[in-house]
């Protein structure tokens, strides 16, 4: 049994949480294309899902090398979208966290911010009608800029929290 769900997330950690809630009910992500999630019914809780933004596009050789490295560790690449990858591992094989220290978590959040920030700025500039006078489109640009500002703020807060900890503990 399969089902298709259309949803849009601005925060990848919320998206990841949702995928794991679906997996707990036995709905396992099989594919993802632009907001359309394809799930297949299976054993509840069989997989743990994680989402990661890679440094390079999916067809880059470094990305391929990384995904092969994950495969060795029993981690399957379910889907990809631009530089995002949807990963899963059998829950029976133990816990599944991509990052085990603060530095690599901070680096991942920073990578996401670096990807979102230029897009947010371009949308903001168009939204403020600096380049064009079309007000209908500028509203959409403003909305897009706001949709990106939310996760950027959230990730910045997370980084700040992790960095405070860094003063005390490795």
């Amino acid at each position, binding site marked *: 049994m399969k089902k298709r769900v259309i949803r849009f997330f601005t925060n990848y950690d919320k998206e990841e949480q949702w995928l794991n809630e679906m997996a707990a009910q036995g709905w396992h992500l099989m594919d993802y294309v632009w907001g359309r999630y394809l799930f297949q019914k299976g054993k509840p809780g069989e997989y743990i899902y994680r989402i990661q933004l890679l440094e390079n596009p999916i067809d880059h050789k470094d990305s391929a090398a*990384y995904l092969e490295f994950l495969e060795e560790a029993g981690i399957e690449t379910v889907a990809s979208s631009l530089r995002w990858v949807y990963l899963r591992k059998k829950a029976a094989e133990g816990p599944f966290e991509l*990052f*085990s*220290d603060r*530095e*690599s978590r901070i680096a991942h959040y920073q990578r996401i911010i670096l990807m979102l920030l230029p897009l947010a700025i371009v949308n903001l500039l168009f939204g403020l009608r600096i380049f064009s006078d079309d007000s209908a489109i500028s509203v959409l640009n403003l909305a897009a800029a706001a949709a990106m500002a939310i996760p950027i703020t959230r990730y910045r807060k997370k980084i700040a929290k992790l960095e405070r900890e860094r003063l005390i503990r490795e």
Partner: protein
Amino acid sequence: MAPEEQGALTEAVFYILLALHQPLHGYGIMQGVQELTENRVVLGPGTLYGALNTLVEKGWIEPLAGPENSRRKEYVITERGKAVFQQELARLEELVRHGKLVQRSAAHEKARD
């Protein structure tokens, strides 16, 4: 050794260098460290992959030329890596020595009271 090579190593880097005193591939490092520390240190694959690349760039470890078409890349510690590891071990021993000294003198005070 350059000053930037004298700070404390992260736990992940310490255990990667330790594990690579024998040639291992990425997954082998994860398993080895997990077994040795009885599941206390579980290296995330994202963290490990990033650390391996950085350590290769620094020349502390090197990839081994494996058999042709081999997908599993094996790594091993270099002489430079061994020197860094020894230096870190000496630093850790100093910490433990100082810690125990305080512990002993505290016990001594208590016995006198």
